[in-house]
């Protein structure tokens, strides 16, 4: 459990977003986007800020600022505005905002941060408009504003019962000065009408009727289609290719070598581009391409060699650098005096993000201008760039293509899944580099194999864990030697760094967290709940092992650690709070009937994890048959993410995260040899399907903390909950993922 947002994420925020919270208001209010200025006459329209337009016919437009990748943000952020505006949801049309961080504030989907960062600013956006509408009505009636109430796009003068619609007030409100957003009154939580209800996704009807929404659906007049072949090992360069032959193939318009960006090879890899008149023609030509690669400087990474090395290193209880050590305590001495010592070695492989929409982007260079349409999670920072070393602002378009950032537009489309993958804009950079050499708009389409073999992977990792128990079975010493990876020799890869706050070190009398970093060329990136999605498996599984060794009930043992007086004070609403942790853990256990007698072959497993400001506990009921077939029957989730914004979206995110976690732990892992990813498609990378999806019952504790995001944090606890349930059912301890490698099947 990181008691803060992941370090790397925080670095990104500091650099790209400034200090979090309330940061955008000065920008929001009074600013009007160019898009809203154009088009039909809106002279009588009320536009108090860049987000809201109320037309005299009652039509209300609310801008959705952040990319929609399946997390439901295009619905939930506008709901926050509509709540404070007191607009009738049926009057509201949601419009995707253009990328303009000067107007809309930071525009990205990552770190489950959208709701957390935008909660107060967007409430103020809505409340500003409501305040002005009330003032317009009060002026009209010559009554005090505080005698007026709002609901369903109508202002009511309560004493007299007079009413005016927002439509009727739009022109008058537009003439009023816009108040300072920080001074407007926000609603009390008890007065919320829209927030906490179930609102369907605003694009649902378009989705079920097959209307074009996604990056892959972008079409432009005269558009050509491109494919791109990269060296299967990162860092390989093109020595030669059969370009003359390729150019003669049907439908092929051009084929050329791109040298790649030497400084940031994961943003623009060297390769061969093919431009054709259809996607299929481009794919056929790509399949016929024969490239000789110069692999002198290419990745030689080998997963089998890494595993052997890590297993040796795991013999050492302490790694190269100590991340945390309890002040003034001797951890070696503490283990010597412990009545009982428990040791375990946990590990897990690299995995790709594998969003169902393979990467793509459409780019059109016209003179010194460049327009890009892409399913990206970070349209806002695409004009800078960051890669797997962390945050790096890099003027890609200027340096690589000689196009100034102010001459580039990036229009985000709906994304067919993100999971962190589209937080790297390599596909977008490739499309731009290809379009720079073509006199037409170009859509670059990756194949599934491209997507699986040129990802920024969830890093594998290894944990040598040790726990010391006293003669009463109390946890008195704890040690976690984490074997991870580095690309630059200095810092861990994205998602591969462990914080000093990682649970339970700071809750134990004497504890140590240390890291050893192995060199790695395979690029790593943020994968749904980075770090947390694997640390939870190792640590929450090991806590169950220690409870078992102590002869104590897992729930009671876990709660006793949380209750330890050493527990650090929460630093704010986004840090670990033991009262919230205890509450969700107890609730999940209660809902699952913890302690009940289980049928033969069945077991209950528990885990808690804190990440992304969310406190979440999960209990899984699992059975294992004679053939090692694992069936997850049901999962109970208890989550405290503060007040729920959209109940339908929130439940769906939790259910999806839980099943994603089961899918990944059961079956998924990559093998890397000679720098090459061996798997290429869903035949060898076998995600969980309908028959194996369990029932998932979701309970929210809606505490008064500010609401936080749910795209990620329900995933980490499920793998340890299932692993612990397998132990309860069979006595067999699972310490490595995927379970398929241990002969277990779904």
């Amino acid at each position, binding site marked *: 459990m990181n008691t803060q947002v992941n370090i790397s994420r925080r670095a990104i925020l500091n650099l790209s977003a400034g200090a979090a919270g309330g940061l955008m208001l000065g920008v929001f209010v009074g600013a009007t986007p160019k898009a809203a200025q154009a088009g039909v006459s809106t002279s009588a329209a009320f536009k108090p800020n860049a987000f809201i337009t109320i037309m005299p016919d009652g039509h209300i437009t609310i801008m959705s600022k952040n990319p929609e990748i399946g997390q439901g943000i295009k619905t939930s952020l506008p709901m926050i505005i509509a709540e404070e505006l007191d607009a009738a949801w049926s009057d509201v049309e949601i419009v995707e905002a253009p990328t303009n961080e000067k107007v809309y504030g930071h525009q990205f989907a990552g770190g489950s941060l959208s709701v957390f960062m935008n909660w107060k600013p967007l409430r103020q956006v809505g409340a500003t408009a409501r305040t002005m509408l009330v003032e317009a009505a009060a002026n009209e009636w010559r009554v005090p504003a505080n005698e007026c109430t709002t609901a369903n796009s109508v202002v009511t003068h309560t004493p007299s019962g007079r009413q005016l619609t927002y439509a009727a007030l739009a022109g008058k409100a537009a003439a009023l000065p816009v108040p300072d957003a920080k001074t407007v009154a926000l609603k009390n939580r008890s007065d919320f009408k829209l927030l906490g209800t179930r609102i369907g996704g605003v694009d649902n009807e378009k989705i079920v*009727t*097959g209307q074009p929404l996604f990056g892959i659906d972008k*079409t432009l007049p005269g558009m050509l289609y491109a494919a791109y072949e990269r060296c299967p090992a990162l860092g390989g360069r093109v020595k030669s290719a059969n370009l003359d032959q390729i150019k003669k193939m049907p439908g092929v318009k051009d084929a050329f070598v791109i040298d790649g960006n030497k400084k940031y090879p994961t943003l623009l890899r060297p390769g061969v581009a093919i431009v054709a008149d259809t996607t299929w023609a481009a794919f056929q030509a790509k399949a016929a391409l024969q490239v000789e690669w110069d692999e002198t400087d290419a990745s030689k990474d080998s997963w089998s060699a890494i595993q052997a090395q890590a297993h040796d290193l795991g013999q050492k209880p302490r790694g190269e650098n100590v991340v945390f050590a309890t002040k003034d305590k001797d951890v070696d001495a503490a283990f010597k005096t412990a009545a009982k010592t428990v040791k375990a070695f946990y590990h897990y492989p690299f995995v790709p993000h594998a969003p169902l929409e393979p990467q793509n982007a459409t780019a059109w260079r016209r003179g010194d201008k460049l327009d890009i349409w892409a399913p990206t999670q970070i349209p806002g920072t695409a004009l800078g760039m960051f890669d797997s070393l962390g945050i790096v602002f890099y003027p890609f378009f200027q340096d690589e293509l000689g196009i100034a950032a102010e001459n580039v537009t990036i229009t985000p489309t709906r994304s067919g899944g993100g999971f962190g993958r589209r937080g790297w804009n390599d596909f977008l950079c490739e499309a731009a580099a290809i379009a720079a050499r073509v006199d037409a708009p170009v859509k670059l389409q990756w194949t599934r194999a491209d997507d699986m073999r040129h990802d920024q992977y969830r890093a594998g990792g290894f944990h040598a864990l040790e726990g010391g128990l006293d003669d009463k079975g109390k946890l008195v010493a704890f040690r976690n030697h984490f074997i991870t990876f580095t690309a630059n020799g200095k810092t861990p890869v994205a998602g591969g760094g462990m914080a000093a706050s990682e649970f339970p070190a700071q809750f134990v009398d004497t504890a140590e967290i240390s890291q050893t970093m192995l060199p790695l060329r395979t690029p790593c990136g943020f994968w749904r709940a980075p770090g947390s999605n694997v640390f939870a498996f190792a640590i929450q599984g090991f806590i169950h092992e220690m409870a078992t060794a102590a002869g104590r009930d897992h729930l009671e043992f876990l709660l006793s650690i949380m209750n330890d007086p050493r527990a650090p004070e929460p630093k704010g609403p986004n840090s670990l709070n033991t009262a919230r942790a205890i509450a969700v853990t107890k609730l999940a256990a209660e809902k699952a009937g913890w302690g009940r007698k289980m049928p033969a072959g069945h077991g209950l497993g528990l885990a808690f994890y804190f990440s992304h400001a969310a406190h979440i506990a999960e209990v899984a009921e699992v059975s294992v048959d004679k053939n090692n077939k694992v069936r997850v029957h049901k999962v109970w989730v208890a989550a405290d993410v503060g007040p729920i914004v959209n109940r339908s979206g929130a439940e769906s995110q939790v259910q999806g995260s839980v099943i994603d976690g089961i899918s990944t732990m059961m079956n998924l892992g990559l093998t890397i040899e000679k720098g090459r990813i061996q798997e290429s498609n869903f035949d060898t990378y076998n995600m969980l*399907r309908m028959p194996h999806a369990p029932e998932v019952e979701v309970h929210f504790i809606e505490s008064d903390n500010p609401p936080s995001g749910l795209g990620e944090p329900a995933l980490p606890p499920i793998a340890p909950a299932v692993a612990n349930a397998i132990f309860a059912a069979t006595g067999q301890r699972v310490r490595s993922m995927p379970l398929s490698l241990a002969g277990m099947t779904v």
Partner: protein
Amino acid sequence: MIHLKINGTMREVSVDPATPLLWVLRDTLGLLGTKFGCGIAMCGACTVHVNGTPVRACSTPIAQMNGAEITTIEGLARPDGKLHPLQKAWVALDVPQCGYCQSGQIMSAAALLHHNPKPTDADIDDAMVGNICRCATYIRIRKAIHEAAVELAKGEPA
């Protein structure tokens, strides 16, 4: 020249006969609702009906389609625009997350209900196992199929 009937309209296409139906739909005919996910018939995102049977358009050469009647997600609603009971249930239960796989999911489910108007959970498992939802909306997909089946039983034609 290949002749096909797509969503009730006769179309003629002149393309490389090896071209998969998927890319003819998307790039040649501009029907973008059918999605590309894997290219090897493993994910189901490209599911369409050919003569009433669900097929994976990514692995179906257009040469085999001469004279075929094809229904895509764009043709599932009634000509008057009234949504299919599955489409209505998908919206009512807020099934989609990212939404990318859902046209394929709905086409697989529509073929199931056409042949089996009252499917059991096991029937649903069998019919839907070829469709991956990376967001894992399986719980709601199952519920929506059951709900659409109830609507159908009330006399709604599928």
